[in-house]
């Protein structure tokens, strides 16, 4: 089974081609087809997972291309991190496939939707199985493609078009960082293989400054994909895509690929203090920055998007402070509870047909299933004790604390506070208070939608227990292949709980005053509500300057290149006119000119001593 693991990503790929080519014939049954393939994929992944709990990592490669004396290979690798991601991705993907059947019900292009989902799942699964950077990069771009296609799924909407384009280009900017880092590594080590690269790093074959540069470049790739500051602006806009897509791609899996990338190339970062610091600071700042924006958003999906950014920032913070296990742990728990939150939000949107939380309220009684599920997710992300988010967050805080950087620790605590606050603000404004949607008969979603949510909720609660100070650190042991049991720090847990509590408390108080923090005239409010004007900044600088360069080159094209042509034409014409006058009909004149030219040539050659050598 393990040596046939390469089949896992091929099932969704098969589903992609099948649905793309014969989608019309399947019609609304496309959902079942897509789900079936993903389910098979998930089963395989689960089998591989159980196998690999006991076995060490497995790798298989074959030659793909020869560049000079270097062989570039492709293949797949199954180490604990990869297998974990594999099973996580296929599982959530399967759940989202299921959920989408309900959510996308009645959509004409449902087969296309499932085809795209299949493509994305294929790319993501292949991404996490890659044994080398090049292969990772290939699928890295392909998941970007999947994301692009799904964001632009409602192609007739201008916003969707713009968001898709923005997502593709912004992530590509990041990708270029990854490309640069990868190529530089190749010329240092003559290989893209992780194992070879890590050996070279350990042996100290790469100079420290170059290593730092490479690590930062790779991190730029991660920043682009994971929507970290300053390449984050695409992620909120990506919410133009269908909600299940947001859950799968822009919350649980693809955006976490950045974290996965840094985790997979972790030895590189460990070798460079500066790179680690950059990762940590970027992560920490993004966490707080995104959380602060989330506080004032009114679109439910955008709140969740900023929350995703913030949580990813948390993971990077952990990575940057040597909390490898903490980051991966949080990646897993976050995948579950954020997917749950998105699906629940999708369920709400499905019911009320709006995304604006100002127009929602009092849905607790109407949405019997969605309400509690959303609450579970909210509790988990806020870090309420005994739920999964609590454990992973505590782990991160611990790693930051151990690292000794108190500035970052403060950032992390502040973010925790804000997280709890904006999540409960969201929860209260949707489910609490009075009803504001009288027109629609609000109906609970069908079972096909809440069933996946229940599964996710179960995991959101329970998954935290794979890595706790009390029952054992299974995840950490497995990932790092050693006993990583760390000391139990009660005070940190207390602080984390208190901070969450404060956040929830403020949210409740504000809810009581029925203030949504949506109006405000203070300049600080305006800055935050406009997302710190980052979009505008890019618009005014990067885009404008690119356009300016293009325009000026148009002028160069028109006046310099074509102008030069024109000059040549004019000169030729002028000479032609002059030359016409030479045609005087005087034979002797012709002869004289011909002879004189010959004489000049002969004399020149004589002086030059023969012809040009």
């Amino acid at each position: 089974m393990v040596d046939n693991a390469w089949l896992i990503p091929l099932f969704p790929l098969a589903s992609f081609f099948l649905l793309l080519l014969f989608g019309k014939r399947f019609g609304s049954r496309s959902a079942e087809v897509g789900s079936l393939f993903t389910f098979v994929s998930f089963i395989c992944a689960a089998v591989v997972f159980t196998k690999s709990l006991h076995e060490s990592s497995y790798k298989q490669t074959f030659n793909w291309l020869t560049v000079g004396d270097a062989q570039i290979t492709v293949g797949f690798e199954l180490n604990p991190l990869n297998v974990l991601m594999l099973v996580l991705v296929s599982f959530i993907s399967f759940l989202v496939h299921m959920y989408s059947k309900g959510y996308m019900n009645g959509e004409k292009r449902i087969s296309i939707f499932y085809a795209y989902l299949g493509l994305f799942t294929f790319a993501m699964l292949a991404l996490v199985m890659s044994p080398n950077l090049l292969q990772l990069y290939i699928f890295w771009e392909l998941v970007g493609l999947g994301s692009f296609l799904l964001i632009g799924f409602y192609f007739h909407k201008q916003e969707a078009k713009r968001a898709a384009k923005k997502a593709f280009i912004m992530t590509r900017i990041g990708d270029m960082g990854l490309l640069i880092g990868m190529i530089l590594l190749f010329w240092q080590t003559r290989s893209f293989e992780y194992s070879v690269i890590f050996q070279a790093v350990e042996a100290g074959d790469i100079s420290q400054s170059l290593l730092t540069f490479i690590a930062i470049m790779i991190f730029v790739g991660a920043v682009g994909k994971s929507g970290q500051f300053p390449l984050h602006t695409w992620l909120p806009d990506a919410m133009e895509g269908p909600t299940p897509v947001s859950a799968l791609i822009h919350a649980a899996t693809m955006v976490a690929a950045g974290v996965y990338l840094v985790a997979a190339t972790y030895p590189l970062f460990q070798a460079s203090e500066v790179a680690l610091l950059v990762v940590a600071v970027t992560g920490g700042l993004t966490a707080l920055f995104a959380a602060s924006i989330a506080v004032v958003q009114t679109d439910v999906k955008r709140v969740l998007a900023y929350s995703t950014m913030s949580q990813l920032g948390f993971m990077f913070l952990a990575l940057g402070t040597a909390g490898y296990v903490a980051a991966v742990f949080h990646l897993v728990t976050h995948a579950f509870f954020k997917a749950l939150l998105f699906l629940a939000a999708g369920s709400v949107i499905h019911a009320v047909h709006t995304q604006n939380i100002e127009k929602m309220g009092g849905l607790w009684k109407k949405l019997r299933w969605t309400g509690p599920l959303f609450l579970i997710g909210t509790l988990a992300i806020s870090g309420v004790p005994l739920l999964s988010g609590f454990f992973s967050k505590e782990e991160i805080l611990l790693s930051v604390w151990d690292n000794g950087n108190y500035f970052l620790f403060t950032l992390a605590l502040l973010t925790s506070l804000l997280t709890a606050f904006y999540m409960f603000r969201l929860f209260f404004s949707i489910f609490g208070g009075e009803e504001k949607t009288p027109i629609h008969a609000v109906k609970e979603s069908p079972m096909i939608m809440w069933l996946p949510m229940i599964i996710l909720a179960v995991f959101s609660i329970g998954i935290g227990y794979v890595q706790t100070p009390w029952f054992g650190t299974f995840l950490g042991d497995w990932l790092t292949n050693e006993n990583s049991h760390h000391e139990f720090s009660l005070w940190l847990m207390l602080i984390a709980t208190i901070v969450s509590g404060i956040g929830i408390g403020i949210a409740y108080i504000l809810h009581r005053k029925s203030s949504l923090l949506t109006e405000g005239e203070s300049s600080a409010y305006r800055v935050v509500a406009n997302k710190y004007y980052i979009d505008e900044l890019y618009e005014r600088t990067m885009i404008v300057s690119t356009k300016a360069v293009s325009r000026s080159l148009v002028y160069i094209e028109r006046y310099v290149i074509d102008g030069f042509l024109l000059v040549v034409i004019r000169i030729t014409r002028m000479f032609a006119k002059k030359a016409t006058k030479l045609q005087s009909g005087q034979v002797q004149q012709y002869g004289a000119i011909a002879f004189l030219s010959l004489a000049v040539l002969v004399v020149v050659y004589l002086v030059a001593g023969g012809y040009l050598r």
Partner: protein
Amino acid sequence: MSVSGEMLAFLGLAFVAVLGGILLIQLTKVVHMVLALVFTFVSIAGIYLLLSAEFVAVVQILLYSGAITIVMLFGIMLTNNQKQEEEKGNRWRKILLLLGILGFAFAVYIGIYNLDIPVQPTTLHEANTEQIGIALFSKFVIPFELMSVLLLVALVGAIVLAKKDDEGA
């Protein structure tokens, strides 16, 4: 270096030839010019003799000094142009041409000066006419025949061109 008879003969002939050429340029009456050229042609025939080409020398006298000069004189008379060659023309062109010709001559002279071909004994002077005849009728028979065709064409062409138009029209 003692001056041999051959050298003396060459110098004399060359002097006359060049003189004839210069007169051609300098004289003003057209008939005089043509007559000056006769000297050149004849002395060139002499040069041919020195180069052991008796047959060519004879042909030279017959053709140039005889036929061509006479034809030219006829031409001059028929065109009835007794006017003197007045100096009109473009002075600049003459100066430029003179310079060009001098430069050209100098360049070619350099080439001649550097030329060094070892002298080999020849048998050209022995039965020269016979040798030419043999060559003409064996190796060069086709060019020779072509030449006769050319002459015929030239003959016909000249007659057609020179005859009065109004008869044909």
